[in-house]
């Protein structure tokens, strides 16, 4: 049984066709709908997307931290080091949480229990998985505090969360997540609540720890700057699916999906003056009522551009938030699969080539 479930390959975490749905009174919310990716050992995989695209639900599905019901993992597989996590009992799952997989959260302000000292919370996590004495756990907690770059760790051990700054608290959270030397760290928007300087420090720290401990990191973020600083591989999520999957270098030099391109165009660029930032028209679709076909087509600039070059019979007019738009018929009726467009670069778009060309001019402009 175990042998059958093991997966070859050197990926630390392997997610195949994960579907996590929420069964609510209003209908089924397909928060994650067929997501596949893998986190390599000792590398960072970043899952990028805007609020509500399903990136956090994906992360929470791995450790089964979702409220079930209403949430249910409908299908798919999650393998950690070749071990199927979805087949584990709740007791075995508790061993994985904090044991093989550590997790840090967005809000360092509320991620620590205000009534216990930081040190005792780390020691608690140590004792939970390694059967050690309280004394030994304390010593290890102080070591961990030192490891995450907290000055005077012995003093900090006895301090309460409210006495620490946001950055310090996030370090304490990281120490807690690393307390049992996990192989995978899930970081759910670890720097969103921090200011930019602290953010850089925390990201540096994560990078250091990754090198020292050969730690695989699954980074959940909406911040492309964070991705640029830390990620090796990137998956861009839109409306419950991964729409673009490639190396970080590739994504930043040549994004192929119109959505990703839109994200990049909405960033301010150093050296380009006096131009309004572009925005993505419309808003994230309601997961109870996704558009048919490609879920991005009502907001897609490429689709509109391509439709102008096509016969009218091959296009349809769809009503969007911003008014009626003519798009290619295939975009509105068939959902594009995630397929390899270039070596190591997969995109879910019927017109990725057209999008590539469309994006070329601003890229040149940038180089000037």
């Amino acid at each position, binding site marked *: 049984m175990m042998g059958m479930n093991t997966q070859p390959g050197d990926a630390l975490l392997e997610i195949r066709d994960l579907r996590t749905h929420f069964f609510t009174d209003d209908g089924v919310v397909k928060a994650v709908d067929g997501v596949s990716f893998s986190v390599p050992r000792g590398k960072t995989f970043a899952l990028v997307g805007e609020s509500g695209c399903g990136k956090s639900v994906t992360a929470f599905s791995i*450790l089964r*931290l979702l409220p079930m019901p209403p949430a249910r993992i409908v299908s798919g597989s999650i393998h950690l080091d070749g071990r199927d996590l979805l087949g584990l009992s709740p007791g075995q799952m*508790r*061993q*994985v*949480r*904090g*044991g093989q997989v*550590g*997790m840090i*959260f*967005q*809000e360092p302000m*509320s*991620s*620590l*229990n*205000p*009534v*216990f*000292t930081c*040190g005792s919370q780390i020691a*608690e*996590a140590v004792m*939970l*998985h390694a059967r050690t004495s309280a004394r030994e756990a*304390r*010593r290890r907690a*102080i070591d961990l505090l030192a490891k995450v770059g907290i000055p005077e*760790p*012995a*003093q900090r*051990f*006895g*301090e*309460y969360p409210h*006495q620490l700054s946001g950055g310090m608290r996030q370090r304490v*959270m990281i120490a*807690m*997540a690393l*307390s049992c030397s996990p192989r995978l760290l899930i970081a759910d928007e670890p720097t969103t609540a921090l200011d930019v300087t602290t953010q850089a420090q925390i990201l540096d720290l994560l990078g250091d720890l990754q090198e020292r401990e050969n730690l695989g990191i699954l980074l959940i973020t909406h911040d492309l700057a964070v991705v640029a600083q830390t990620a090796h591989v990137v998956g861009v999520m839109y409306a419950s699916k991964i729409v673009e999957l490639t190396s970080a270098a590739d994504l930043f030099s040549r994004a192929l999906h119109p959505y990703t391109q839109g994200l990049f165009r909405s960033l301010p660029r150093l050296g380009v003056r006096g131009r309004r930032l572009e925005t993505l028209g419309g808003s994230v679709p309601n997961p109870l009522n996704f558009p048919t076909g490609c879920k991005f087509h009502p907001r897609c600039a490429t689709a509109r551009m391509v439709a102008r070059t096509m016969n009218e019979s091959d296009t349809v007019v769809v009503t969007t938030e911003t008014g009626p738009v003519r798009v290619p018929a295939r975009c509105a009726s068939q959902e594009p699969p995630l397929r390899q467009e270039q070596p190591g670069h997969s995109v879910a778009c019927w017109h990725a080539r057209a999008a590539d060309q469309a994006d070329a001019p601003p890229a040149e402009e940038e180089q000037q």
Partner: protein
Amino acid sequence: MTMDAIQHQTSAGGAEPVAQRGASLWADARRRLARDRWAMLCLGIIAFYVLLALGGAMYEALAAPEGGIPTFEETINFDQSYRPPSLDSLRNLLGTDWAGRSVLLKTVLGAKVSLTVGLMSNLIAVPLGLMLGAAAGYFGRRTDAVIVWLYSTMASVPGIVLLIAMKYAFKNVTFLGLNLGGIHGLYIALGVTAWVGTCRYVRAEVMKVRELEYVLAARAVGRGNVMILLRHVLPNVLHLGIISFSLGVVGAITAEVTLSYLGLGVEVGMPSWGTMIDGARMELHAGRWWELASAVGAMFLLVLALNIFGDRLRDALDPRLKNV
């Protein structure tokens, strides 16, 4: 020797770093409370009552006649009836009652009954409310539905009617050595009717706390439900229990007085503020005001002190009012 001790300390500190304790929520609250003069005054008054009650208990243990229940029956002295308050003796400081017994002594012994009732009934009500409220708020679903149904049912029955019913139902019933028709029954009756408020507050607060990220973080390091509830949720709502306790004592004291006034509270002959008020109400028209005034005054001061202290305690424990 002192040098030795210091050296020992430093060497221990060198071998193993000594952790320093920061200020916890409780230490913080204590500091803020200590700075609050009204709170300290009220705490002083409460402490005074506690001492009185302890004194009363000792008097009963030492001076009450052998074999007899600790009442005043034996000290009946009709020559001394209805002496108005006077300064000529401590015994007559607050006058005497119809049987010539010291009103001062009765008032002191009444403090004992009131505080015991307040304490015992809340020792039942607050833990009950905390546990049920925490379970309802944390587990939700069916557990929540059952507990909410239970307290809604309790809340829909007027407390005093339930108390009267229980007093009559358990009349002359003893269970595990507890006299359910008497004072023990009163503790239980007040206890099982007073938990609803605590339960409601705690349930609401737990619902809030269980969604906080440190609870999720505790799950993410592999904690189970029971330990999360005990270690991460309960300590964060414990202040509600303490506030409920300090304000609940007030409710229990007034309930005891009301019930005793109605003849349903403490056993016959046991001095309590309620029975004092009951006994004195017919004598007011004859100008004998001191027994009523003593009982009411004693109760008023204690209830006021408890109320103000409970209020200040709540402020001190409210993190939102920090540094105000």
